[in-house]
């Protein structure tokens, strides 16, 4: 490809429909890797996903069991609080509705927890209703460790720090508790369309 046509291609993205770009965001074609710690490398044989907390008995899925559940392929825009947005990203994974289907709980909040100690909190309402997934593939390929593989939470209607990388489970809570970035001053809810970057925004 000639340098000219590359430059032209690169420019096209800024013509993305402005209605799809939340306030203060810019569109990127890259997939920046953000990381606040070392990248865990979890062997699939020892991976599991657990729902615990306000529930009679915790429930767990092995990697194999997760793969056996009905999967969905989602095309969605993602918005990082560091101001990049990436349009039409394609993920494959299991809807949290599927995992929470048989769970009886009085909880109204969940904390996602991950290998490496990361946590993030969200209302249970935002984790259900076809709005959140455990994603294990990106663009049809297994999710790379630097992007949160083997599996990450995908909650694209909130800033992307809520889409916890290396996710291992959900803690169901009756009371909300701030996760990692939320406890350091980031917004508790994180709606990109209301530009809820920091506490008080």
């Amino acid at each position, binding site marked *: 490809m000639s340098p000219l046509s590359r430059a032209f291609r690169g420019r096209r993205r800024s013509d993305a429909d402005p209605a799809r770009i939340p306030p203060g965001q810019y569109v990127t074609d890259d997939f*920046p*890797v*953000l*990381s*606040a*710690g*070392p*990248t865990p490398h979890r062997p699939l044989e020892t991976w599991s996903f657990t729902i615990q907390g306000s529930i009679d008995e915790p429930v767990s899925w092995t990697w194999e069991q997760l793969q056996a559940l009905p999967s969905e392929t989602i095309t969605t825009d993602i918005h990082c*609080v*560091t101001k990049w947005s990436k349009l039409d990203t394609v993920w494959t994974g299991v809807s949290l509705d599927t995992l929470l289907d048989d769970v009886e709980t009085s909880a109204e909040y969940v904390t996602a927890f991950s290998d490496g*100690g990361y946590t993030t909190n969200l209302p249970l309402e935002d984790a259900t209703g076809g709005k959140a997934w455990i994603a294990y593939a990106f663009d049809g390929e297994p999710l790379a460790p*630097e992007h949160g593989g083997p599996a990450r939470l995908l909650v694209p209607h909130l800033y992307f*720090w809520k889409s916890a990388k290396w996710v291992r489970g959900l803690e169901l809570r009756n009371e909300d508790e701030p996760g990692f*970035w939320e406890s*350091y*001053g*980031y917004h508790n809810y994180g709606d990109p369309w209301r530009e809820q970057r*920091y*506490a008080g925004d």
Partner: protein
Amino acid sequence: MDALDGNAIAGVLFEVFGAEMTTSAAVCANCGARAPAAELAVYLRAPGTVARCRTCMSVLMVLVTIHERTCVDLRGLDTLEIPASRGPSGWG
């Protein structure tokens, strides 16, 4: 992604503490390891800057810039030795 070392946050620590901090000893509240700030594992490519203990990888310091104000969280530290001021030059 590989971590940087504490020299990557030397500038911001100087601004916050008003002293050259890279030789200051930081003691991890989790494992008790003691190391100069220059030897911490630092991650810059995140919503904030995170400095971790090289021994146990616990979070020691988090710096988040919120609307032009940098907030420094030190809850992971047991102690951080800040060099005493030497007073006006010529007195030290």
